């Protein structure tokens, strides 16, 4: 009797398994199937995109080359106490001789030299000079080293070497933030004249903000116009926004070069109308003006599209009701219409700001000296100065800024609501 009642309480499927278990199983199967569909892309993005970004993170702190080449010296240096103001003991010099001889043969020692040169200039030539002579060094090695170059008798040389003997370093980040080690090993600001990166970050933020404000000022009136016009007309005007949006970035940058340069269209027009004289042509390109004008033009559609889609949802009755209740057009706009568009302003503004702080191509072509942004310096360290560690550190800092902004963008708009065209 009792067993019969129990089986009746739990509903089962035809083969006797409880319904709950069976349902959970089916659900799990569906879940796995959904995950399996996403898995190939996830794996692909992981390998082609995330691993490279993590590689950059790793490179910004990595310092393998020093402990690898100076394999005997580095562990001894790490144990050496540099606070008593004396040079390292003789065993360190002996180890260094061995490392230099081996490194000179394998041609790796010069790479340590150029790595250390980022810490203090002079290391590169010091290492080159010492590597040439090291095989003839004889005991006592301390004197031999100092005879080869007086810098080996300088306590600071050894202190810096000790500091950078570990497998990881923060010195790229310090350089990227214009900090450096002071004489006693404490971290200090670089003097004003040498501080380039903070100025650059600050300029990047300032120009991006200016571009965002300009985009907003230009996008607001035309988005409002398009949202109030009948659909046929507004669709036509939309083409004028979408055509630049779809046109290659380089085409638009080229167009601005043709317009803004000294012998370009705008200067020619100004001369033709007698507003400026021929030998007084305006310098509008290869400076910050060129960057701001060209980037405002390029990013304007990114501001118009979200603003327009928000404005289209505001019923015209709101404004009419406000005026009906006695508000002047200005008051009605400020107190009724404008607050309704704030979400569009936030979405477009953050989008334009995010895109412009990481912009590379346009500033590289029209920016000259005072119109270049942080990304141009990342590119410079990657391909010209070959200081990859510093390039990676600058990149990580920029990525950090973008991710913070992106977080706010997600809070305001939601990533899923992103639309194009």
């Amino acid at each position, binding site marked *: 009797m009792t067993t019969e009642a129990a089986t009746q309480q739990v509903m089962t499927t035809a083969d006797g398994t409880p319904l709950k278990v069976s349902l959970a199983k089916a659900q799990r199967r569906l879940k796995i199937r959904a995950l399996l569909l996403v898995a190939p892309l996830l794996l692909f993005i992981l390998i082609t995109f995330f691993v490279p970004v993590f590689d950059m993170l790793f490179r910004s702190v990595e310092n393998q080359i020093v402990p690898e080449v100076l394999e005997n010296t580095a562990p001894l240096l790490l144990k050496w106490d540099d606070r008593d103001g004396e040079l390292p003991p003789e065993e360190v010099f002996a180890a260094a001789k061995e490392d230099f001889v081996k490194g000179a043969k394998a041609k790796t020692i010069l790479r340590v030299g150029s790595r250390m040169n980022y810490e203090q200039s002079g290391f590169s030539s010091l290492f080159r000079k010492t590597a040439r002579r090291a095989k003839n060094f004889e005991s006592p090695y301390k004197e031999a080293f100092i005879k080869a170059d007086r810098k080996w008798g300088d306590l600071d040389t050894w202190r810096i070497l000790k500091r950078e003997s570990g497998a990881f370093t923060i010195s790229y980040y310090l350089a990227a933030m214009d900090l450096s080690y002071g004489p006693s090993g404490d971290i200090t600001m670089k003097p004003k004249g040498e501080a380039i990166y903070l100025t650059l970050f600050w300029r990047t933020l300032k120009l991006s903000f200016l571009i965002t404000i300009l985009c907003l000022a230009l996008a607001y009136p035309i988005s409002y116009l398009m949202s109030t016009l009948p659909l046929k007309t507004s669709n036509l005007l939309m083409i004028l926004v979408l055509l630049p949006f779809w046109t290659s970035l380089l085409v638009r940058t080229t167009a601005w070069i043709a317009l803004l340069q000294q012998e370009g269209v705008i200067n020619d027009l100004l001369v033709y109308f007698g507003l400026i004289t021929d030998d007084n042509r305006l310098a509008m390109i290869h400076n910050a003006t060129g960057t701001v004008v060209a980037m405002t033009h390029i990013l304007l559609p990114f501001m118009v599209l979200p603003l327009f889609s928000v404005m289209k949802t505001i019923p015209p009755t709101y404004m009419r009701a406000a005026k009906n209740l006695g508000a002047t057009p200005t008051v009605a706009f400020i107190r009724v219409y404008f607050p309704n568009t704030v979400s569009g302003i936030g979405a477009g503004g953050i989008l334009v700001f995010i895109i412009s702080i990481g912009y590379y191509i346009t500033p590289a072509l029209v920016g000259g000296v005072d119109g270049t942004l942080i990304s141009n310096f990342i590119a410079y360290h990657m391909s010209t100065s070959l200081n990859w560690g510093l390039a990676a550190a600058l*990149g990580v800092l920029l990525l950090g800024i973008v991710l913070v902004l992106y977080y706010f963008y997600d809070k305001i708009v939601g990533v899923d609501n992103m639309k194009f065209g």
Partner: protein
Amino acid sequence: MALPAYTTPGERVWFYSYRTICGLIFFFLIAPIVVIIPLSFNAVPFFTFTEEMLKFDPAGYSLKWYEDFFTSLNWRGAVKNSGIIALFSTLIATFLGTVAALGLSKSEMPFKSTIMALLISPMIVPLIISAAGMYFFYSRIGLQGTYIGVILAHAALGTPFVVITVTATLSGFDLVLIRSAASLGATPTTTFFRIIVPLILPGVISGALFAFITSFDEVVVVLFVGSYEQRTIPWQMFSGIRERISPTILAVATILVIVSIMLLTVVELLRRRTERLRGVTPA
């Protein structure tokens, strides 16, 4: 739009000045693109209008920059490379992106928003950072300076666009259609190819177009991950502008503007088709 008779003079002034300002902004948007078209027919290697051009003297115009574009080995290679790289990266991005979007739109999908955020990140991260990371990593594994490296990089950059457009199409998808297909005796495979695919195809195509244009227009990543051998049209334009600027670049730019007008038309037609299929008629 005519103004009603009761408008005050002040309102009239405001109305017309507002319209003028808007006109100027639209002019600012479109003029730079329009200006380069006549300049690309310049007979002399300058980026400005000559006296002959302004007098509409035929001697002031010439097709030689187009000739240069079509005959130069540099540009021909660039066109070929752009085509190959964009085609293969679009195929990869469209396939992987569509499959993933099908999974993401299932209601059983766990960690949906986290996965979506991960999949979209190649679009968010500034190109210079992606380029730097890929340059470091791809040179470690020997893909730097190869076609495969550039194609993989561009495919990664294109997938977010496919995922977003296809999930957007699927969000308006009526699940009853699948059940009714099943109740009428269709197997899941038949349902997929005869019901789901035709309905999401416009979304897939416009996603593919976005992926294509991303690759076709991309220059930062190709500058670092590629080399001269993989030069694409934007690569060639970039180095052309940096080294010696010639109106051939304007001729290329004009051709690209025409290509983008064509793409814009296709996307617009697809969008209208999707709306029609969903029963949304333009008001």
